[in-house]
């Protein structure tokens, strides 16, 4: 969804785009892409869903029991799922599991990157659901 018709008259979109681009530069992009795909599946974000191969979606759906993902990926996926369900209920154990693989600074960066990716998806979904696809006059 093009956000420009909705946010184009403020500097919010410029900063959101800058944050989104930075997220992919500074965080582990492979891990972030994995979590982006799972975010998109859980939020039913159409653009993301359309870009996920069917086999990849099946693998991701079964990540908890699949051996296709290493401990690092599994920790990040569990964190991501809890983030979507209830971010305030992420447990210390779930946070520690990701931090143990990334280190403190990279963990903090990863969480912020995840926020930016999720924020953009929910913004697009929210605007489409509440306001429809029609751009403001």
């Amino acid at each position, binding site marked *: 969804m093009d956000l420009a018709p909705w946010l184009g008259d403020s*500097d919010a979109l410029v900063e959101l785009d800058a944050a989104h681009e930075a997220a992919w530069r500074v965080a582990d992009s492979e891990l972030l892409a994995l979590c982006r795909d799972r975010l998109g599946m859980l939020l039913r974000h159409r653009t993301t869903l359309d870009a996920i191969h069917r086999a990849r979606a099946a693998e991701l759906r079964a990540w908890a029991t699949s051996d296709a993902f290493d401990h690092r990926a599994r920790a990040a996926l569990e964190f991501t799922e809890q983030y979507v369900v209830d*971010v*305030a209920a992420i447990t210390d154990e779930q946070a520690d599991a990701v931090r143990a693989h990334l280190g403190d600074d990279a963990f903090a*960066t990863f969480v912020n990157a995840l926020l930016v990716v999720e924020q953009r998806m929910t913004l697009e979904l929210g605007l489409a659901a509440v306001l429809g696809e029609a751009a403001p006059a």
Partner: protein
Amino acid sequence: MSNPRTARVTTGTRASSELLGPLVRFAAAAVRNDAVDPLTTELVRLRCASYHDCHT
């Protein structure tokens, strides 16, 4: 109610400033946006506070 928690990263931990800069500026730009009516704005503010576990 949220889970009781301890600090999850050590003192001095910093996320990438390259990411935090535009993220903070985006939040500020969103707050400055006055195109939405006050009641809806307040509802969104309260929802955001809950989402972020903010008690201020």
